[in-house]
């Protein structure tokens, strides 16, 4: 029995328009100037950590599920990806852009992108950090015009102690397939 303390972002596909506003908001929220114009003027690269994708007729932003026992943390050779109390974080300073995390993430939610760290540009892993440093909470939640994204703080999720979120997700897939049959 373990308590899932961490919050994660949940999307309601019925409400999502696929307008990419969350992507833009995410990218802007992770620039230094916190504004689109400022970022463009200072030449900072705009990279979003969530991606709106279309599968059949469903449009949907995907981002990191903040796995508790995350594969990306387990394979990171430098300890750049690590698990905090609330979420799975990346320290871009320590990242060597080896891409092992992108290889093992079951959601494909982590990417290698060009970021600016301590004044110099480098390649590093980027992923959703739930905008922990932002006073107003996640930027995508704030920006979504239809309020399709919301921050869920699960009170108590009963799961196997050793199973990671990713494995729970995989088990869910298996259950679905069995149900479909």
């Amino acid at each position, binding site marked *: 029995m373990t308590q899932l303390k961490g919050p994660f972002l949940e999307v309601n596909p019925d409400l999502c328009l696929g307008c990419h506003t969350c992507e833009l908001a995410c990218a802007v929220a992770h620039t230094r100037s916190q504004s689109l114009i400022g970022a463009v003027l200072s030449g900072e690269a705009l990279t979003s950590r969530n991606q709106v994708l279309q599968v059949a007729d469903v449009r949907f932003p995907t981002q990191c599920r903040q796995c508790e026992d995350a594969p990306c943390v387990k394979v990171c050779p430098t300890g750049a990806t690590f698990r905090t109390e609330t979420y799975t974080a990346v320290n871009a300073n320590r990242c060597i852009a080896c891409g092992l995390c992108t290889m093992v993430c079951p959601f*494909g939610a982590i990417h290698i992108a060009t970021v600016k760290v301590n004044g110099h540009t480098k390649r590093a892993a980027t992923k959703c950090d739930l905008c922990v440093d932002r006073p107003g909470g996640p930027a995508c939640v704030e920006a979504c015009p239809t309020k399709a994204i919301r921050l869920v703080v699960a009170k108590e999720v009963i799961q196997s102690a050793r199973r990671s979120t990713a494995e729970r*997700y995989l088990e869910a897939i298996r259950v679905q397939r069995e149900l479909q049959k």
Partner: protein
Amino acid sequence: MSIWEILAENLRQGVVTLRYPQRVPPPARYRGLVQIELEDCVGCASCAYVCVSAAIHVTEERETFCWSYDPAKCTFCGRCVDACPTSALQMQAECPPIYHCAGALAVTYTRAYPRCEGCGKPFKVATQILRQRAYTEVSGEVETLLRLCPVCRQKEAIKSMVEARRIKEATR
């Protein structure tokens, strides 16, 4: 022990020299040339990152990556072997060969990235060792998912989520 006793002891001991072509075999854990098992390499360039003397370089193209190694620059410290997350590198337990032209031992291997089973895009794919490190048990689902590129994995996630909602509503 006086010098005379030492000389007498040496004479008594006899010749300890190895005749030239004879050699002391290197120990089992001797660090010789670095060798790569290309099938196990994922192109993460951790080895190039830790290499103190820049003997290893990994260059990435769109569809391929090159792993190049110049023993002339190597310090034979073994950091690359320690750093390799997929155990693709190992060191020969024998002395590197003598050579006569600069750069004669340098090697470059090129490997094409595996292609995504969904969209056919080349991408870095996790090897078995990596999967075992990332998951407590590597199920068939993990295998299939990790053979897809990150974008296809995202799409797969969307699909299953939509499916889950649909089933949930249907059962309600």
